[in-house]
């Protein structure tokens, strides 16, 4: 009798693989979707900073990540150098200072020579800066470099989803999300409750008129660039080593950040936060499905396309009206 020979083969397998392929895929989707939030939080920070810069300095700063990366590499080089062996926290401070200074220089160039240029021209300068920084980094740090050493690692907590799969909450995710919220809340307080913020908003509304009433537009603009450079460098310090960080692919994460900013139409930094997390989670979900995993980076492209089409649809409606 069949019972004499034990359970059927598939039952025996199910002892080791208790779920069907579909069930396993569903669980992986949840696990990977959650794991993708870490990269999503990083996209969100980039998106938030892009949105704030776009509003306050009339520029889409494509060089933002390259600036942070450059500072990060300088800090890491000082850490790894056997003669210097800089402490990780000091290395972070060096990274932040260098990124802030580099960002300030780009801001100063734009504020000095292109104060009234259209946003497209000003943004084009940042593309040139991006290319310049990437090629300089390549010359200075060589082709074979180590990954960034994150200042946080490991997991804060973990929980089990129904079915027994364990989901980890990394320190990187918590740190990046906390930084995103700090930037959002602090910028909101700064812009609404301080004279510095009121002047920044005045520049954002009418730069020339602000200058005519005595606002020091150039200094304030460069100040925004410096702060933005410092913040992106700090954020890079929390990025886990799993995120690719060769010069080019790391600098190009700016595209994911831009898509996040686009979700908020470069106007609403809170929506940029949502957009960043959404993109990260969607990319994570895609990587759990073998058939579409190779195309996970398409999520950014599709999101940008959908947003632009949605916007166009509104314009058509406006014209029709």
């Amino acid at each position, binding site marked *: 009798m069949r019972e004499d020979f034990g359970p059927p083969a598939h039952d025996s397998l199910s002892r080791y693989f208790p779920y069907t392929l579909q069930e396993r895929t569903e669980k992986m989707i949840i696990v990977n979707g959650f794991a993708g939030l870490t990269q999503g939080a990083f996209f969100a920070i980039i998106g938030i900073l892009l949105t704030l810069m776009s509003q306050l300095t009339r520029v889409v700063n494509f060089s933002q990540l390259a600036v942070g990366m450059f500072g990060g590499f300088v800090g890491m080089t000082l850490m790894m150098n056997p003669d210097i062996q800089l402490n990780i926290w000091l290395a972070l401070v060096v990274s932040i200072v260098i990124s802030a200074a580099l960002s300030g220089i780009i801001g100063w160039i734009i504020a000095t020579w292109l104060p009234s240029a259209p946003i497209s021209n000003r943004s084009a300068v940042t593309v040139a800066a991006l290319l310049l920084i990437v090629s300089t980094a390549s010359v200075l740090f060589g082709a074979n470099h180590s990954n960034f050493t994150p200042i946080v690692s490991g997991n804060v907590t973990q929980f089990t989803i129904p079915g027994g799969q364990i989901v980890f909450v990394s320190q990187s995710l918590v740190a990046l999300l906390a930084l995103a919220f700090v930037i959002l809340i602090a910028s909101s307080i700064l812009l609404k409750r301080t*004279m510095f913020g*009121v*002047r920044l*908003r*005045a520049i*954002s*509304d*009418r730069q*020339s*008129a*602000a*200058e*005519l*009433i*005595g*606002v*020091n*537009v150039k200094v304030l603009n460069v100040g925004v660039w410096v702060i933005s450079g410092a913040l992106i460098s700090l954020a890079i310090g929390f990025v886990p080593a799993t995120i690719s960080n060769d010069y080019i692919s790391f600098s190009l994460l700016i595209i994911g950040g831009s898509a996040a900013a686009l979700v908020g139409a470069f106007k609403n930094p809170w929506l940029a936060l949502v957009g960043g997390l959404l993109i990260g989670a969607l990319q994570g979900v895609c990587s759990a499905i073998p058939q579409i995993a190779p195309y996970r980076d398409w999520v950014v492209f599709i999101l940008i396309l959908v947003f632009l089409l949605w916007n166009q649809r509104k314009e058509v409606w406006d014209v029709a009206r």
Partner: protein
Amino acid sequence: MSLVLNDVTVSRGVGPVISNVSLEVKPGQITTLVGPNGAGKTSLIEAIAGVITPSGGTIVMDDVDITKLSKRKRSRAGLSIVEQGRMIFPSLTVKENLQLTARTKADMDEALALFPELEKRLNNQSILLSGGEQQMVVLARAFAAKPKYLLLDEMSLGLAPVVFMRLLPVIEGIAKSGVGVLLVEQFAHLALKIAQDSVVVTSGRVSYQGDPKALLKDAELLRQKYMG
């Protein structure tokens, strides 16, 4: 002590839009600058404020040559401008608009005293105000800076005459407080009524300079000067 323009020439594009204009704005007086559309009045105001750099001549404020100073430095030196088109900062509240120039609370209170109706709108976003109220905010903001000289460019643009009439006594009051006012205005007859000095500009050149009352009395003279 006055704001003096010596042979100021302003070029835009192919050629000069203002040629060798000289005039003087005295403290405590209103000088009205009138002329037909395209005469170069706004270009002249922009040259004084530092928006554009004159291609010739000098601009001297209280014996200091400000021709090469930046817009910001001119503003810090005591020059305020109310540009055409109600240049409020739309995302800012009325109070924030005034805070941009008022150095002390007393400055703010004095500015608000010009237009008491703004007091109850202090926390409103300025874009939500009516056109007249927006112009009041701009004028109050300029006054809050405690200027020595105030340039007013076509304040009546887009406003109902009745609303503009509300602004005129305020401009007179500002001048009486010791501020020199250069008033560019399309409603020439209204502007000339409150002025102590007048300049008519036609095709970039001064065609008349002198007593505004003479222009008001003699309509033919005004017409002639307008036509160049």
